């Protein structure tokens, strides 16, 4: 390519370069050709699919979603009964997926960070234990872990009458975990409002005071101020709701099962524990890599300018480690969400399970699969969109 570009050639050929030798034209031409090829193949795939669907008599109509589902669902955070529509049942599945994913991501991040830091510990025993933990979980298929945890929750715990009682009270038995759950009393509204207010105020104070500190160099104790707001405002709300904003909804054994409280099924518990322990092993490696990626010189420099240990961590190590950690962490979060579909083997009614049941009860495989893919895609895109915003914020600002 170089010769064509050289001025000597251009002069020899004069101002009229033949089209087939003009690099600019060729480039555009190549773009068009590859676009046609790609779009053509895509079209071919779609047409092929539509033809096959028609030949096999598979209808592509989504109208069935409005019909009554007819099947029961074991656990749902919104009121469900079998007279609701297939769409509603599907939404129950989506919410169940979101529930296990959000709770799972929360705990996996905490556990993963702890294990990751433990692996870097100078204590031989701690770092070896963390190593064994990560290697064990990284080398066993998630499905096997799930089945082990499931049989633990079913067979390892006593029956309902002989429940293990933890303070709370929390009941542990083979029907799951029954938690005493706080529910709002009629006069509880001021308390809820005060909590929301406290969170907003705390964030505002944090941001404003921190900027002020960065601008002027005067210590504003922004962390303490925020924490103080977080505590004081809810106390005011608590007094306003006559000291009784919440009441405990205690689970009570009635007939076959516990009634009241918040019920976590063994299926949910097994899925959650399986996903958390599995994903935490990967997050631990990500965290370890991130911390190790920070150059040793940075640490020494920070010491040299007299930062204390917590400043060293919060101002030097963590900001730089996060840059390395966040991108792979996003994909671990997505993995956890998508892996929750393995719940189909242990009977937790999440999105994929509800989809499969719908396929069978409504006989509309293609539409349901499209719906399942669309929902997973949306969840994944949304998760990475949010985390990418965060990622952009913590990247190095080039000056």
């Amino acid at each position, binding site marked *: 390519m170089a010769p064509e570009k050289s001025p000597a050639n251009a002069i020899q050929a004069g101002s009229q370069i033949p089209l087939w030798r003009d690099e600019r034209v060729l480039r555009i031409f190549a773009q068009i050709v590859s676009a046609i090829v790609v779009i053509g*193949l895509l079209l071919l795939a779609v047409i092929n699919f539509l033809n096959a669907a028609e030949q*096999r008599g598979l209808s592509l109509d989504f109208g069935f979603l409005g019909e009554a589902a007819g*099947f*029961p669902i074991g656990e749902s955070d919104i009121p469900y009964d079998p007279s609701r529509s297939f769409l509603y049942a599907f939404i129950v599945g989506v919410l169940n997926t979101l529930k296990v994913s959000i709770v799972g991501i929360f705990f996996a991040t905490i556990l993963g960070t702890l294990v990751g830091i433990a692996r870097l510990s100078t204590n031989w025993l701690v770092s070896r234990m963390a190593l064994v933990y990560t290697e064990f979980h990284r080398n066993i298929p998630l499905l096997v872990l799930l089945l082990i945890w499931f049989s633990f929750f*079913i067979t390892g715990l006593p*029956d309902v009458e002989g429940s293990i009682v933890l303070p709370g009270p929390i009941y542990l038995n083979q029907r799951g975990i029954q938690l005493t759950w706080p529910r709002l009393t009629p006069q509880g509204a001021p308390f809820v409002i005060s909590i929301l207010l406290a969170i907003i105020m705390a964030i505002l104070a944090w941001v404003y005071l921190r900027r002020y500190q960065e601008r002027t160099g005067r210590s504003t104790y922004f962390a303490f101020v925020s924490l103080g707001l977080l505590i004081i405002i809810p106390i005011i709300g608590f007094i306003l709701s006559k000291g009784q904003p919440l009441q405990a909804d205690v689970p009570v054994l009635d007939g076959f099962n516990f009634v009241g409280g918040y019920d976590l099924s063994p299926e949910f518990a097994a899925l959650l524990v399986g996903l958390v322990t599995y994903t935490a092993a990967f997050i631990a490696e990500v965290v370890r890599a991130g911390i190790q990626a920070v150059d040793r010189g940075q640490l020494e420099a920070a010491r040299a300018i007299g930062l204390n240990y917590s400043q060293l961590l919060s101002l030097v190590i963590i900001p730089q480690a996060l840059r390395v950690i966040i991108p792979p962490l996003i994909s671990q979060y997505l993995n956890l969400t998508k892996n929750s579909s393995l719940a189909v083997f242990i009977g937790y009614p999440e999105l994929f399970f509800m989809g499969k049941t719908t396929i069978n009860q409504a*006989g509309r495989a293609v539409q349901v699969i499209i719906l399942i893919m669309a929902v997973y895609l949306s969840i994944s895109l949304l998760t990475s969109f949010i985390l990418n915003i965060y990622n952009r914020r913590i990247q190095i600002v080039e000056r």
Partner: protein
Amino acid sequence: MSRKLLITVSVFVLIAIFAAACGTSDGGTEGTAAGYGEIVNRIKERDSVVCGSRTDLAGFGELDANGRNVGFDIDLCRALAAALLGDPEKVEFVALSAADRGPALQTGEVDVLSRNATWTTTRDAQWGNFTSVWYYDGQGFMVPVDSGITDIEQLDGATVCVTSGTTTETNLADAFRQRGLELTAVTFEDTATVYSTYEEGRCDATTSDKSQLFAVRGGFANPDDHVILDITISKEPLTPAVPSGDDQWFDIVKSVIFGLINAEELGVTQANVEQMKSSDVIKIKRLLGSEGEWGQADLGLPADAVAKAVAAVGNYGEIYERHLGSGGLNLPRGVNELWTNGGLIYAPDQK
């Protein structure tokens, strides 16, 4: 240069991916909704019947000690292979979960679904064509004996283990809703998981077709600790089904079922089928193809199709005895007796 290389490589990769994708769908056109005789031709070309079955239900479809498929539903597939291809071993069994059997039939992945599937009008409309009832069943409940439960009303608030994607699942919901009872359903796709989970005590009861409950209880560590309640909440006509489109194949499957039933009615057994070919009874001779016609030629079957089927697996009664009766689960025949003995098993004459 390197960018050009990159583009070229990616284009080739893309083409390869799409080619692979198209290749798969081309390969799949084998399962296209069939026209008249297409499935029959496919079976003859392949020289085996693809039978959607199960391997996890004692009596109906399971594996014996040698890994061979055996069972009440399995024998029908063997009878079909014997009738059409002359050899009961020319069957390819595809194990299907309850949730997978509908799509497998819709896409024509299997030639026949013989996997204790309940015949419902919706399934008939969507999945394919249901042939003729092979076993009359009804949905019941199994509970631990020490629970003292005898009636469905006592199950208010109970946790019930059930297989997902079945009529059982929706019947359960209907039965509880109808009576205003509280229900927590724990559903699994895998039938074996449903029962092991129930046995471990995760559920207060489990529900399915009574024959299935009977079969499963026999496999429990302590069968006597569990009781099948004397209530039936649904009609479950378990019926083999074929993909839509090929009426010839549809008729063949029905004829073979009728043949096995008629053989029992006429006293033709696996042991005496050869002598019976020269019987004095015209009906028997016609059934076994040694005199006259009952439509074999039009269906593309050999004249002695039913004789071959009976020689391979026995008549309906013998199949029942072997797998569900004294040779197997010890399930009383009940409504699955011949109509001449007061049951519901009745087939049109083959003439």
